[in-house]
């Protein structure tokens, strides 16, 4: 992805939503909702977090940051990268995932200039809150149908990760439309179409990590969910 800069030195570089894409109303709304969400995540984590959760929080944030740097190619000269919210939500629960994603997105915004300062609320809302909760409940739904065998967990992980990316991209498309960036009939199919493909990568990575955890430390999948 950084090679992109070398090839096109004058070009702006967009991975998360930069400032300028969203209007004031959307920025304000998403900031308020995300601040409330993160506040609630902190409150619940303060209540339920145990010592054995602590290293998992650090490892997941580190992994999600590292994996987000690895853009993988999808069709038509486009790339995608992991969001990681579904993985975090499957391992630690949706509110813990909101905390982890917020750490990652805030660091990416402040240190790596990835994602706008004003758009931070929207990025946390889409990739933190929407992706975490959709991933978590899709996983629970899938494993309730498929059973909690190894196969059920892997398929559940794939499906929920795919769904979480698709939903986050649809919410992002709605924000762009509300902001007047692009009409809904244009931006929604485009965002959903590309992210239905990117979601396959998200699903494969999520299932691979679950498989690795099952093979090495299966007990880590049974931590209390927050």
């Amino acid at each position, binding site marked *: 992805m950084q090679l992109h*800069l070398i090839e096109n030195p004058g070009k*702006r570089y967009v991975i998360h939503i930069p400032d300028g894409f969203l209007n004031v109303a959307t920025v304000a709304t998403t900031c308020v909702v995300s601040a409330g969400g993160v506040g609630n995540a902190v409150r619940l984590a303060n209540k339920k977090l145990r010592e054995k959760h602590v*290293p998992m*929080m650090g*490892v997941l944030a580190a*992994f999600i*940051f590292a994996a987000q740097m*690895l853009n993988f190619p999808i069709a038509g000269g486009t790339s995608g*990268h992991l969001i990681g919210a579904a993985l975090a939500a499957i391992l630690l629960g949706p509110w813990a995932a909101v905390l982890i994603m917020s750490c990652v997105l805030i660091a990416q915004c402040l240190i790596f200039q990835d994602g706008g300062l004003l758009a931070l609320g929207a990025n946390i809302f889409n990739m933190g809150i929407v992706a975490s909760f959709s991933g978590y409940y899709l996983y629970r739904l899938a494993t309730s149908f498929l059973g909690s065998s190894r196969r059920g967990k892997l398929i559940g992980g794939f499906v929920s990760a795919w769904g979480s990316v698709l939903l986050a991209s649809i919410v992002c498309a709605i924000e762009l439309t509300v902001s007047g960036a692009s009409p809904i009939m244009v931006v929604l199919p485009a965002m959903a179409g*590309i992210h239905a493909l990117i979601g396959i990568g998200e699903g494969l990575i999520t299932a691979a990590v679950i498989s690795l955890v099952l093979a090495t430390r299966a007990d880590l999948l049974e931590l209390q969910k927050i």
Partner: protein
Amino acid sequence: MKTKWWLIALLVCLAVASLSPLASSSPDGLERVAEDKGFIDTGQEAPFQVIADYVFPGIANETLATILAGLIGTFVLFGVAYGVAWLLTLRRRELAK
């Protein structure tokens, strides 16, 4: 002494970050849509730059600069999330004493 599982996991994360120069250079999903649908130019650059675009400043070798940015970010995120989680369990540990 048994090695802590998370130390091994952190090493894996650092290894993943070291692969970052191999990442696809194509625009990602949102960037592609913004280009195709003509609103990419409404994007504004950040008012300040630290390690902008995952390239550590002042290093001529782009590959090294990217790996360094990735390693720093991975350490920072481990430390921040571990620290936040540790602080959030502090109250419980105080009570347990």
